[in-house]
């Protein structure tokens, strides 16, 4: 029995799009390059994640490389952040995007050379970026650390993919657009736009002056999460959830509401990180309002998925890919709820500058985005390679270890961060004492990150095994029998 559930999923009606395996095969090379390199970047990011968290516990212990400039906390943290966000999550997201677009457009892809060049360029850019950060050429701007030439290479690669996405959409089979396509178009238009803007104005000679840099940087971060990762992950979930449980999405009007609300609001969400900062109060206020209103798309999406899966939870017992996606979309709801809470002035002024915001970022990047992407890779890779996953137990362990490790991390950072926040508010508690309060939580962070890193390595092992497996175990022809139950938008 296939643990990831194609054969097992009910098939109410045959595919109206003919042979899905032909379409899958047409994009397999670029998508697999993106997935394989994403996995490699996840391993690199994991190593640096663990390094940075132990460096915070024991800054002087020899095994945290004190005094080695290349591996000092400030550099290894930037390597972790960028390898995770661009190396792992964005590469996997681009792969998922390409695969989804070609499937949903119902045509065998053309212009493969565009995609393969993009994949190669993207990885050259990431590799140069990694070396630049270690060697000390960082811009020092969160999530825009890569020097401008790396930014240019990455933008070029992105532009090639976006160009291909638009070309493919233009040549799609006639008919309505799926909600997933709406999300993907948004992601592939918004992200290159945001990335080009931020790089041109911030890193390339810092054209923007003074405090406007902070506005642009936070606009970029808000857009990166809200209009790049979120639409790709929701696009994937809106495609796979109905397919896996074997019935159409509960309400497409609700899906539409969630989509337009996200597109309207996400670009405005970043500035709430600057409560009390030097930007005009109205900018921060708009951002707070946007963050609170982000509950609308979050609840719309949560309700839709819940009503779709409701009563069919038994699918989760054997469909492991769906497990990851369900947990990921639940994390999206929590992420939005927490985002709305900590953006308000009352709470925001206490938790800004604390570990709470770090935990919140991880809830988005790992709990939501990475979990959905794991599910996507577990679903897609066997179909592209025409093979089965080798050890179901490995995948189950990956799931549980990720969940436990991440739960621990989030609890640790949130509780530690709240204590840190209240201590920082009280000027009678000196900074030394604040660090004292934090130290058990920094240790807890290391333990949690250790569990997550082991889980990530397990995932990488599963991917390596299926790529290197000597024989084709999966029977061909099964892919074509998948159902198409996506929600359509008229």
């Amino acid at each position, binding site marked *: 029995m296939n643990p990831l559930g194609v054969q097992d999923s009910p098939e109410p009606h045959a595919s109206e799009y003919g042979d899905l395996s032909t379409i899958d095969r047409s994009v397999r090379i670029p998508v697999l390059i993106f997935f394989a390199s994403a996995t490699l970047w996840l391993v690199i990011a994991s190593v640096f994640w663990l390094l940075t968290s132990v460096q915070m516990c024991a800054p002087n212990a020899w095994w945290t490389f004190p005094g080695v400039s290349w591996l000092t906390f400030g550099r290894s943290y930037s390597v972790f952040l960028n390898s995770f966000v661009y190396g792992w999550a964005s590469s996997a997201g681009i792969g998922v995007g390409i695969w989804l677009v070609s499937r949903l457009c119902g045509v065998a892809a053309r212009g493969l050379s565009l995609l393969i060049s993009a994949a190669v360029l993207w990885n050259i850019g990431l590799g140069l970026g990694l070396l630049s950060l270690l060697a000390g050429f960082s811009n020092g*701007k969160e999530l825009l650390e890569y020097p401008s030439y790396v930014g240019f290479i990455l933008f070029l690669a992105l532009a090639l993919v976006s160009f291909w996405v638009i070309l493919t959409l233009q040549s799609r089979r006639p008919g309505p657009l799926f909600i997933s396509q709406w999300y993907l178009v948004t992601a592939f238009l918004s992200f290159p736009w945001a990335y080009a803007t931020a790089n041109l104005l911030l890193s390339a000679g810092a054209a923007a002056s003074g405090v406007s840099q902070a506005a642009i940087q936070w606009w970029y971060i808000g857009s990166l999460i809200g209009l790049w990762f979120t639409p790709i992950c929701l696009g994937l979930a809106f495609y796979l959830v109905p397919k896996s449980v074997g019935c159409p999405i509960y309400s497409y009007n609700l899906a539409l509401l969630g989509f337009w609300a996200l597109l309207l609001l996400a670009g405005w969400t970043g500035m709430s990180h600057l*409560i*009390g900062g030097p930007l005009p109060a109205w900018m921060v206020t708009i951002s707070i309002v946007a963050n609170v209103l982000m509950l609308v798309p979050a609840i719309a999406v949560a309700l839709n998925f819940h009503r779709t899966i409701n009563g069919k939870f038994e699918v989760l017992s054997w469909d492991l890919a769906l497990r990851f996606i369900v947990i990921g979309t639940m994390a999206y709801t929590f992420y939005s709820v927490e985002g709305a809470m900590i953006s308000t002035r009352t709470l925001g002024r206490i938790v800004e500058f604390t570990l709470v*915001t770090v935990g919140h970022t991880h809830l988005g990047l790992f709990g939501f985005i990475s979990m959905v992407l794991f599910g996507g890779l577990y679903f897609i890779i066997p179909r592209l390679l025409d093979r089965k996953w080798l050890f179901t137990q490995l995948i189950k362990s990956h799931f549980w270890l990720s969940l436990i490790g991440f739960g621990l991390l989030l609890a640790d950072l949130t509780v530690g961060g709240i204590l840190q926040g209240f201590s920082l508010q009280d000027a009678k508690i000196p900074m030394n004492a604040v660090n004292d309060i934090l130290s058990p939580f920094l240790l807890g962070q290391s333990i949690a990150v250790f569990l997550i890193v082991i889980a990530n390595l397990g995932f990488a092992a599963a991917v390596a095994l299926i790529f290197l497996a000597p024989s084709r175990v999966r029977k061909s022809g099964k892919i074509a029998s998948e159902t198409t139950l996506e929600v359509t938008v008229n």
Partner: protein
Amino acid sequence: MNKLNRLFFGVLVLFGASWLGMVAYPYLTFAGLQPNKDDATGEVVPTGKPGTAEQGYHVYAANGCVYCHSQVVRDKSDGSDIDREWGKRRTVARDYLFDRYIFLGASRLGTDLTNIGARQTDPQWFYRYLYNPQAFSSESVMPAHRWLFRTVKINEEPSSDAVKLDGADAPPAGYKMVPTAEGKALVNYLLSLKKNYALPEAPEPTE
């Protein structure tokens, strides 16, 4: 208009609105800010940074100082920043007018550095802190930045910059520790961090 074009248009208008509001508007507005001239004294603030401090920006950026240190002073109503003596008043847009790169920061595992150059004026303090932060505060999680220093023979170079280290950190007899060019640039940058002048839009709290 077909569905795809409607979608393109939707992204252009809705995401474009946030681009206009959060990128174009601040970009154009803050570019028009002018330094403040005090009518009584004729003093113009803020001023630009000296050249060596400019180079220090890059060392600050390269080593990720911003991951733990903020450069924002908030009003009393928002936090204890002023009570912690990180600044006498909140920082406003005009304070950052001449900063080529700004590092507001999102974390305070370390202290705020907005006015560190006003609190500490001795380069030696910075050198010794960067060399061994735990000598100042045993709970500190700050990494030692020893690659910003090198050991040279005592008579090799003029010794005005030699770092005064004692105990286990002291260099071997006949040698001394001096900061590298990067180390000097970073300390010059840190020394230049002071927003301890008055601006009409951010009066010092009276109480």
